[in-house]
């Protein structure tokens, strides 16, 4: 009964989504206020029924309703209750339901938090988001219904959730990632609206920015969680593999980053308008492309969903509608939203343009690398090509190094025109200091010449010292340093926090890549190995009982410089419920290094294979990602996104009402 209710809610949600995508849009063109105002209640209705539907599937999971096919293939009566709940998004159908629930949630959020949007704009935005919901609800109901019943011979028990998914990291990773993916649909809807109205002004950019930041922050966290999971659960010390599934999440992130910067220019200076619109379309399109690639099984990957080409065909049709139609609309309408303001060669606008070009070129490189095996096969008929990390690193790392060079210059320069003398005065010392320190500090600590390390440290210092210099300049005339800090706007603080995150990530990645030590050794109790100033001594393994598992618990004592330091307790757990065993690595997370121990397998007597890693600064990778996401959130809190009227005053010559004559005529 409950699964039927869930199915029925899905159908109702689809009906509401159809109404949402049609009625307000009709209202706009008929100038019918009533139809336009329907967009809000329809959005709420869509959200409520999606939530109900999700609740029904969760109920079926929690109550072991194995007559539902999806539950039967992704759960088991012995599964712990929290994994029963997270099993809801453990497979294709359920995660698609979560995906659409999130589209509906973003739609509902826009209808809630956009009280200061003109009604006709809101109606268009919500309508466009309604169309996205319609596409994916149709896809779900006709090809991947999570409520399908196994009418004949429902199994007595389920086949269990994939053991790899029974892990905290993978519980939170997909929802965060989807929130990011789907969140770009808001920027996309705003972009389509701008193309439809032909009106793209500072206010438009101001409405779009917080939504884009929010989606980007979710995506940042989602990607970081995925990487963190790979690091601590797979336990082979890697945190990024340039796997297609990672790439398809990373591409919308890169374009989203470009979009955030381009939106800033569009808001402040009224230029790059059609470019901003294109980026907004591209960010969401790449999210959809990612969904398509993963769910159609098009490209073989370590952790993709089950393969089903027929679903792929329907998804490709959706892609054609959503991406193809919007890019076509862009081609027709982009001249209408062209910017008119001018800027010079050393303005902030130009540096942000460079930022955009670098980010888009890296995205294009990654896209090419990801799709290349497919293209190669289509052209030559030879299926034996794979593109690996060396290609991606060659493309990506130099571009990012260049990006960082421009990052500091861009964030310190001024809009419209920045004199070269000013840049020199601000940055000459910063440049010299970062290059010198970048060479001297690593050299002093390691006593070896390592150019990539020099470069990474110098680039990170270039960002950090640049931030310090800029804050110093900005607070110089504000009396005390504290009152100066208080006068900084939140969007400025957000920007610098995110940039600081970038510096931290660079340090983390570079230091970890170069200085990690990884050893797999066979150790008998009492034996040990020495890595750097640490000595790891294996004390043996004993059987312990956990609440729902039995484990071989190892004990590895760590000495630092010969003195007792700490004890790592890696475990190998056999869960009673499924009989599956999880290797639980024990990681001592430190600010400057992680100590990592995991049990391999027993090797006769009392000896075990023990995997021991010393990973310097690896924590900084996730710290940096967290800072970036935090920066995005801080920027959202800026007052000006909540001030109703100020939108129309800042940028002279542009209005939010009606069509700006200077814009509509330009082409």
């Amino acid at each position, binding site marked *: 009964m409950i699964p039927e209710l869930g199915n029925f809610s899905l159908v109702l949600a689809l009906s509401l989504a159809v109404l949402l995508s049609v009625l307000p849009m009709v209202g706009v063109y008929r100038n019918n206020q009533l139809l336009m105002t329907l967009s809000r209640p329809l959005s709420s209705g869509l959200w409520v029924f999606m939530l109900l539907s999700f609740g029904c599937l969760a109920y079926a999971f929690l109550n072991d309703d194995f007559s539902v096919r999806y539950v039967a293939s992704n759960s088991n009566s012995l599964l712990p209750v929290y994994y029963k709940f997270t099993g809801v998004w453990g497979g294709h159908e359920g995660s698609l339901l979560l995906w659409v629930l999130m589209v509906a949630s973003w739609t509902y959020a826009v209808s809630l938090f956009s009280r200061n949007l003109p009604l006709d704009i809101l109606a268009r935005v919500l309508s466009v988001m309604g169309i996205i919901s319609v596409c994916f609800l149709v896809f779900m109901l006709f090809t991947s219904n999570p409520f399908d019943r196994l009418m004949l011979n429902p199994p007595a028990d389920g086949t269990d959730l994939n*053991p*790899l998914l029974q892990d905290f990291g993978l519980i939170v990773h997909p929802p965060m990632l989807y929130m990011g993916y789907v969140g770009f649909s808001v920027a996309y809807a705003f972009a389509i609206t701008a193309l439809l109205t032909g009106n793209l002004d500072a206010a438009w950019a101001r409405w779009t920015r917080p939504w884009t930041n929010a989606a980007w922050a979710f995506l940042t966290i989602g990607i970081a969680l995925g990487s963190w999971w790979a690091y601590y659960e797979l336990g082979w010390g890697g945190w990024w593999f340039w796997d297609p599934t990672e790439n398809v999440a990373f591409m919308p992130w890169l374009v989203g980053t470009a979009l955030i910067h381009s939106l800033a220019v569009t808001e402040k200076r009224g230029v790059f308008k059609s470019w901003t619109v294109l980026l907004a379309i591209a960010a969401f399109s790449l999210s959809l492309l990612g969904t398509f690639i993963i769910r159609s099984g098009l490209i073989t990957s370590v952790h993709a969903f089950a*393969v089903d080409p027929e679903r792929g065909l329907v998804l490709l049709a959706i892609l054609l509608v959503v991406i193809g139609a919007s*890019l076509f609309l*862009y081609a027709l309408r982009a001249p209408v939203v062209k910017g008119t303001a001018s800027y010079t060669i050393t303005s902030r606008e130009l540096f942000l343009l460079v930022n955009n070009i670098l980010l888009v070129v890296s995205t294009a490189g990654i896209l090419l690398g990801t799709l290349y095996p497919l293209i190669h096969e289509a052209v030559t008929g030879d299926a034996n090509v794979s593109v690996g990390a060396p290609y991606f690193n060659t493309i990506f790392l130099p571009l990012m190094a260049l990006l960082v060079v421009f990052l500091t210059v861009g964030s310190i320069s001024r809009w419209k025109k920045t004199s070269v003398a000013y840049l020199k005065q601000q940055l000459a010392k910063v440049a010299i200091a970062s290059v010198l320190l970048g060479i001297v500090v690593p050299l002093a600590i390691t006593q070896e010449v390592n150019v990539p390390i020099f470069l990474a440290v110098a680039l990170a210092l270039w960002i950090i010292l640049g931030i310090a210099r800029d804050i110093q300049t900005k607070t110089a005339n504000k009396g005390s340093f504290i009152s100066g800090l208080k006068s900084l706007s939140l969007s400025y603080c957000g920007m610098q926090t995110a940039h600081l995150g970038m510096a931290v990530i660079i340090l983390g990645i570079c230091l970890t890549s170069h200085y990690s030590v990884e050893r797999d050794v066979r150790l008998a109790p009492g034996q040990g190995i020495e890595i750097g100033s640490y000595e790891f001594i294996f004390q043996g393994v004993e059987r312990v009982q956990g609440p729902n598992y039995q484990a071989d618990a190892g004990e590895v004592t760590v000495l630092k410089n010969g003195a007792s330091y700490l004890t790592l307790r890696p475990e190998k757990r056999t869960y009673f419920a499924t009989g599956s065993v999880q290797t639980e690595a024990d990681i001592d997370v430190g600010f400057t290094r992680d100590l990592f121990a995991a049990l391999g397998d027993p090797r006769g007597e009392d000896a075990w294979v023990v995997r021991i890693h010393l990973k310097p600064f690896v924590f900084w990778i996730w710290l940096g990602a967290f800072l970036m996401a935090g920066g995005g959130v801080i920027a959202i809190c800026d007052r000006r996104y909540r001030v109703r009227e100020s939108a129309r005053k800042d940028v002279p010559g542009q209005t939010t009402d009606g069509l700006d004559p200077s814009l509509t005529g330009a082409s």
Partner: protein
Amino acid sequence: MNKRVKLFIPVAIFLVMAGFLLYGLGRDPNTVPSALVDRPLPEFTQPSLYPELGEYSSGDFLGRILLVNIWGSWCPPCHLEHPFFLEISETEDDITFIGISYDYSTVEDREFLAERGNPFDFNVVDLDGSLRIDLGVTGAPETFLVDQQGMILYRHIGAIDADVWNDKFVPLLRQIR
């Protein structure tokens, strides 16, 4: 180039890409699943399911036709295909059957094989999941057919029965024998 025409570049790029994607979907779904088909079996050194037997390396099996089956005692479809494996392991003398335990519960795997019969010539455990990841395994059961040169000829996702065997494996076996 005309400025208006330039604006159609994004949609043109997208349509070309969509063409490739469509081509990708049109490929034989049986060849899609593995990037490893027509490539060598990844090298590995893994312990035996029976600790007293030490460990096996991929090199030990060169020169033989291999049927590599990834399975786990917890996995119902693996139970389903198990009797069929017992059957063909009797009749197909020139094929070396290698079982790779997908879960890590070596005790239960050993019990399972003791109770229901052992179709495998060699039993390997993949304790840390590294071999599974090298093979790009998405779940259990999965089966790889490997020729005498150590190249993967075919990968099957899901349980194998007589139909699958006759349709997919027998023609390939005829070629390499």
